[in-house]
């Protein structure tokens, strides 16, 4: 069953096949959890994000087709959107659960970078970027800030932000492609 492509499992799932849902869920569980956790820094919120993702997919509130590229990129995009929505909601309504978190959302970027670098196995390609590029990737991908917010935070002209981001993305691409070789 697991040799089936994601796309074919997805289509079976959309026609109501619960086993196909389970197979897809299992295949992506670890990846999505680590990915969601990178945004929320919290187990409970990460689980909520992933539940929201599968709810949307199972209930047809989002729909995948091959025009949208690979299933893996699509489901990560859905997860990222759900995680960013979750962060924005949490910011809008700070709750009494703040102390339960195993990390804060307003953690300085520098700290998260250092934490990742001191992890026993540094596998994060982002950490090989120059510090200013790491920060840009952090703000764009994991914080979901607007271009204006990035411009304000880094004290860069608005027009320069996009160019710098693109350059950081291309550098990251090179690092990743170099590893895959």
């Amino acid at each position, binding site marked *: 069953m697991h040799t089936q492509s994601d796309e074919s499992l997805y289509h079976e799932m959309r026609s109501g096949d619960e086993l196909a849902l389970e197979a897809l*869920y299992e295949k992506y569980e670890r990846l999505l959890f680590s990915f969601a956790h*990178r945004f929320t820094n919290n187990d409970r919120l990460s689980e909520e994000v992933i539940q929201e993702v599968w709810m949307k997919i199972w209930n*047809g509130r989002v*729909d995948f087709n091959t025009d949208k590229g690979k299933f893996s990129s699509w489901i990560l995009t859905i997860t990222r959107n759900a995680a960013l929505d979750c962060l924005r*909601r949490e910011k809008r309504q700070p709750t009494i659960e703040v102390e339960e978190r195993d990390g804060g959302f307003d953690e300085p970027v520098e700290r998260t970078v250092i934490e*990742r670098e001191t992890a026993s196995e540094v596998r994060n390609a982002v950490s090989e970027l120059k510090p200013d590029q790491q920060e840009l990737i952090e703000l*764009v991908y994991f914080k979901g800030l607007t271009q204006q917010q990035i411009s304000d935070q880094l004290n860069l002209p608005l027009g320069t932000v996009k160019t710098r981001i693109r350059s950081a993305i291309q550098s990251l691409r090179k690092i990743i492609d170099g590893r895959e070789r």
Partner: protein
Amino acid sequence: MEERCHDLIDYFNGTLSASDRDAFEAHLETCDDCKQALQEMQDLMLPIAESLPARPVPAGMKSRILGEVLGSARPTEEPLESTSNEPVRQETPHVSEFETAQTEKKKKRSVPLGWLMSIAAALILSLGANAYFLSQDEASPEEEFAMDEVKGMGNFESTASIKGSSMIFTKDDQEYMLVQLKDLPPLKEGELYQLWTIQGDTPRANGVIEQDGEAAAVFPLKGDGAIDAVAITVEPEPDLEKPTGEIVASVAL
């Protein structure tokens, strides 16, 4: 660089208003540079995710999530009493608006159905999940279609210029609510349109629309009994126990 090129990051991060998002999507059709930059950003999603340190998955997560997900899609099943991620909301004064919506019952049985019927046809033919969305031009009116019984229909009345109709019908012993809406105002980030079915003065969350502009959808009805009215609110989260936003449109059936 064109003015619109500056919206790339905000488009990628979903922080544009609906009108700016539409304008950027139109811009993407003509700007190869933005198209390529966006593709580069999207293509990095998988390698970035794969390069993250693995986090141990909480025990029992799979059964909790699949339990909730599968439970959510069984239309004949009674709704779960509470779900783990459903915030407990306090009573809000908006509940009284549902009473108003319910008492606004009017004798409007002859509704110009327009494309409602043809959309219903295409939707029901392919109904395999909780809800289907499609755009008007994808409907296939020539395909064979039969609702078993239409139990009520009406046009929405709106405080926000929303137009549209709703119809409750049965098909193979299951009740469905069809809605078609136009001129849904833009949503702020994180917001959605929540549909509520109202029995007496009790609203029940029954379907979510996460887009503005035009939408058509069929939702299996939750619970039993006749629906008196359908109302729409703007909410920060789907399927809350009670509405927190004001009613933007409602229809008495």
